[in-house]
Structures are given as structure tokens and as C-alpha cells.
């Protein structure tokens, strides 16, 4: 196996990890602060792709579409939170799962009604086409580099927001002890609306950003949602840092497994066994990783301070 392919796949895995991080960051904050299971987070991913995609087609610019999508997704997020989710905080996890499952059905159908069953294709603008040379004979698609850079910038911004600002301090306080933070005068409902809006923007951004590669489709958020679940379970619910590490870990292991596991298996197994076991095992790899990590650390890699797995 040559090293160029290895580096390429490593970067692909890194890029998947970035997408997963954008999803998982919002999800983990919502879990952490409000103890809410939000299955509809995958729908926000999809809505971001469709709304952002439409804005892109209308303005004829992916950049403009992405910029306009941010307030749109923030508004949608705050709206969904206020109308549908606010009443669910005090409910059991079971009720939350069911109600947000209902939201998924609603959003999928509403999307089908508005944009039709065929989905939406967003062309990649010309200046983002082509490849860049990374040195040592490695070239990599420019747009995927852009995705990675944007993701890293967002991660940095989120880190600064959570770790360095007053808003972030309140978010962290809410995540480690909601009741105490409320008692000390933090307006938890407003805080949560804002956090949910930010989560919606991040999910929408993730959805829009991969649309030029895959195109927007109904239900596109669901597979990503489940992967994002795996990510926040591995990373520790409520921890943005954990989500970042776990997202990159998951993205890289999944991509590398799919590309190289059959080659690795060939070292131990006869050719036909390796060929049939490779795809099966590689699709299971991240779940095995999750099970393994949970077996030793039931609260994930970076449990936020003050949180327990039992709660």
C-alpha cells in the first residue's frame, strides 16, 4: 500500500471527522445543558442543506448562501426549540425520544412536500474546483481542504466561545449543574434557546458543506445523526472537547477501516475470507470502538466535571 493513498484516506477521515464534529457539538451541548435527547438534530442537518442549497441557487453563490443560511438556521433552531422542545425538558427521556422522532417524520415529509422527493443538487463554484498540491507528490481536492479549514476554524471559535467568554462560562455552568446555575440567576430558558440556535447553525453548516459533494436528500441527516451519537457517547456527553477528539477518532477510524481493513486482514486470513469479512467488519469498526471505550469508561473519554453517567 503506498503512502499517498494512506495520506489521502487519512485526510478523508479527517474531513468526515470535521462534519461529525459540527453535528456532535450542538448535540452534546443540548444534551449536556438541558438533558434533552434530540433525535431531530439530524433533521436540522438536512434542513441546513436544503435551505442553504436554495439560498445558494437563488444568490448564485455558495459563499453568500452559506452566510445567509446562518441567520436562517438560527431562527429555525430557536423556533423549533420554543414551539416543540421547550415543553419536553421536564419529561422523561422516553417522551423526548418519541416526540423528536415525531419531529423527524414531520420534517422529512415537509421537506418532501416543499422540495419534492428528488432532492437538491448544488454545484461546486468554479473557484473551489481543482486540487491543491500538499507536497511530497500528494494532491488533494481543494474543496475538501476548505471543509477541513472551515471545520477547524469553527472548532477554534467554539472553543474560544465556550472557554473564554461570559456566555461560554454560563453554558459550562449550565452543563455541570443546571439547577445551581439557575439558582444563581442565569436565565436558563434564554441560554438554552441560544445554545440550541447555535447547534442548529452548526448542524445546518455541516449539511450545506457536504451538499456540493453528495447533494441534499431527504433523510440525509439520519446516518450522520447516529454517527454523531456514537461520537458524543465516546467523547462524554456535554463535553465539546470530547466531541472534537471523538469525532476525529471516529471519522478517521471509519474511513481507514473501509479503505484498508481488507488489506490488513489479508495478512492473517486467506484471500476470499478477507474479502468477505473486510467490508462487514469495517462497517462495524466504530461501534466496536464505542463498545470497547464504554466498557472501560462508561462516561466516555472526557466526562464534563460534575456530570455522572447515572443521571
Amino acid at each position, binding site marked *: 500500500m503506498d503512502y499517498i493513498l494512506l495520506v489521502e484516506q487519512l485526510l478523508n477521515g479527517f474531513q468526515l471527522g470535521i462534519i461529525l464534529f459540527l453535528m456532535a457539538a450542538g448535540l452534546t451541548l443540548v444534551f449536556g445543558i438541558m438533558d434533552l435527547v434530540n433525535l431531530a438534530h439530524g433533521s436540522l442537518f438536512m434542513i441546513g442543506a436544503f435551505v442553504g442549497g436554495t439560498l445558494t441557487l437563488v444568490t448564485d453563490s455558495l459563499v453568500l448562501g452559506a452566510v445567509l443560511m446562518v441567520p436562517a438556521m438560527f431562527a429555525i433552531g430557536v423556533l423549533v426549540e420554543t414551539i416543540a422542545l421547550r415543553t419536553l425538558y421536564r419529561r422523561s427521556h*422516553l417522551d423526548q425520544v*418519541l416526540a423528536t422522532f415525531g419531529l423527524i*417524520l414531520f420534517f422529512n*415529509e415537509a421537506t418532501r412536500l416543499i422540495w419534492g422527493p428528488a432532492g437538491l443538487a448544488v454545484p461546486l463554484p468554479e473557484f473551489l474546483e481543482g486540487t491543491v498540491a500538499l507536497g511530497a507528490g500528494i494532491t488533494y481536492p481543494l474543496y475538501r481542504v476548505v471543509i477541513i479549514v472551515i471545520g477547524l476554524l469553527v472548532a477554534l471559535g467554539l472553543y474560544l466561545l465556550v472557554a473564554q467568554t461570559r456566555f461560554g462560562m454560563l453554558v459550562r455552568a449550565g452543563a455541570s449543574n443546571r439547577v445551581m446555575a439557575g439558582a444563581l440567576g442565569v436565565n436558563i430558558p434564554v441560554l438554552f434557546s441560544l445554545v440550541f440556535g447555535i447547534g442548529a447553525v452548526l448542524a445546518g453548516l455541516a449539511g450545506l458543506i457536504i451538499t456540493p459533494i453528495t447533494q441534499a436528500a431527504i433523510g440525509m441527516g439520519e446516518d450522520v445523526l*447516529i454517527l454523531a451519537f456514537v461520537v458524543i457517547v465516546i467523547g462524554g456527553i456535554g463535553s465539546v472537547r470530547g466531541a472534537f477528539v471523538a469525532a476525529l477518532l471516529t471519522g478517521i477510524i471509519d474511513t481507514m477501516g473501509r479503505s484498508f481493513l481488507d488489506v490488513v486482514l489479508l495478512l492473517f486470513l486467506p484471500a476470499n475470507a478477507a474479502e*468477505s469479512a473486510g467490508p*462487514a467488519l469495517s462497517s462495524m469498526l466504530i461501534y466496536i470502538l464505542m*463498545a470497547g471505550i464504554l466498557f472501560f469508561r462508561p462516561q466516555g473519554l472526557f466526562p464534563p466535571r460534575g456530570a455522572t453517567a447515572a443521571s
Partner: protein
Amino acid sequence: MRSQLTPAHAVATLLIVLCATIPYLAPALDEPFYVIVFARIMIWAIAAISLNLIMGFGGMISFGHAVYLGIGGYAVGILGFHDVTSAWIQLPIAIGLCALVALVFGVICLRTRGIYFIMITLALAQMVFFLSVSAERYGSDDGLNILWRSEFGSGLIDLEDGVVMYYTIFAVLLGCLLLQWRMVVSRFGMVLRASQSNDTRVQAIGIPTYRYRLAAFVIAGVMCGLAGFLQANLERFVSPDMMNWHRSGELILMTVLGGTATLFGPLVGAVVFLLLSETLSTITIHWHLVFGPFLILVVLFARGGVMGLLGSRTTRD
């Protein structure tokens, strides 16, 4: 447990009588399609009962329960693919496989609680789902057709006969209802219910609740696997879609719709869910647009599900 007769009892009795008489009632009403609809309802009811055992009575919200439907189904499909059609081989393998998977999954999941439990059951089920998708030999996404239903090798149970198939499902449903009832009122069920409301206290009394919860998890897996076995035989078809996570969500939904932690809730929920989706989908193809918000309203306002509205006390109290 013993309470006065409520409308809930009447509804439960009516449903059982209806299930028992549909193969004769449906042709008389000139609606032969109802036979297959009720056969499907009963299979979903079996699966929902198995989920109710762990979710309703044990507080273990499994969001990957449909995986056992798939495993039970694929046991029939894959063995049939290799020309092994004897039920005496298929059934033990389906049961054994479900028990083994439930045991392994249970050991992993039961270390956690709450949100973690929900997400891990979902992820583990998703793992098996992707395994079935990647099995090119067995049809991947397209699934497998089953040419011959499971053969019991006796004249008495010939599943190729539609009526026999129907009453086999009915018998299994009755058996599962009976087992659920016996389990819930037994010492075993008491420990399970007690550990749902206060696990620490039950452990402090000296009862190792982990073992009880694990046993219940495995029993529920096997029961759901039986439903998968029956579903594969009824539809003569298995596909990864049987264990799509939407199916797991629907199972939870049925159980809650009917009333969790009630004996007949899962059956009532399966009836309401399937008849409702059957009716709504004939009115408009966009029926999910109505169904989604309906679900949210059920969660918000109809606590205790249909059985709760009808005045059935949950056995949890």
C-alpha cells in the same frame, strides 16, 4: 394487580376475540385483506410486548429493539437460502442467535443508564443493520426472498397454509401475553419493577439487580426474535429494513401509544398504530406530516397511552 373491570379490559378482550375470529370474519365482510393486516398487527404486538418487558417494566429504553426482528428473520432467510428449511433447525438457531446477541449487547448496555443506554442500544443495532447491508451474498439492501416457509415436518403445522400461519402467530401472541403476565407478577418481575423505580435501594436489600435486568434483556431479545421469525415467514421476505432504526422507533411508539407497563398496552398500541398508518396512508401520501405532530401530541397530553385513557392502572403502581 387485581382491579375492577374497566373499559380497558373490555377493549383487550374485544381485540383478542377479533384476532381469533378474523380469518372467518374477514371473508364474511368481503375484506380478505384484513387477514394479512391482522397477522402483521399480531407480529408487531409480539415485538412490542417484548419491548414492554424491558422498557415498561424494567425502565430499559432500548432504541435498537428491531435488531432482533432482523436477526430472527435473517435466520429463516439465510438458512432457507442454503436450502435448510426445517423449522427444527431454523427456530433454535433464531432463538440461540437472538439470545447470544442480546446477552452481548446487554452486557455492554447495562453498564450505563439513561441517555447513554438509549444511544448505545441504537448504535449497536445500527452495527448489525450495516452488517446486513454489507452482506452482498444475502442480497444487501434488496434483501432475500424466502421460497419456502419453515417446515415443521408434520401435517399439523403447515405454514404454507394461510390459516395455519395466522393461527400460529395468534398462538405465539397468546403465549407471549401469558408469559409477560406471569413474569411481571412473579418475584422476577417484582425485582425488575423495583429496580426501575430505585435500583440502589433494591441492591441495598441484597438483590443483584444487574443479573435480573440482563436476564430480562435476553428474554425480550428472544421474544422479539420469535416475532422476526414469524414476520419472515409471513412476508416470505427479509431485508435490512426490518432492523432499520425507524422500526425500533415505531416499536417504542406502539408500546407508548397503547400504554407502557400495562399487559395489553403493546397489543392495543400495535392495533392503533397499524390501522392508523394504513388509513392515513390511503388518504394522502404525505401522511407523516399529520402523523409526526400527532405523535408529539400523544406524548404531551395522553400520558399512559390508550390503556391509560381507558382507565387501566399500570402495574407499575
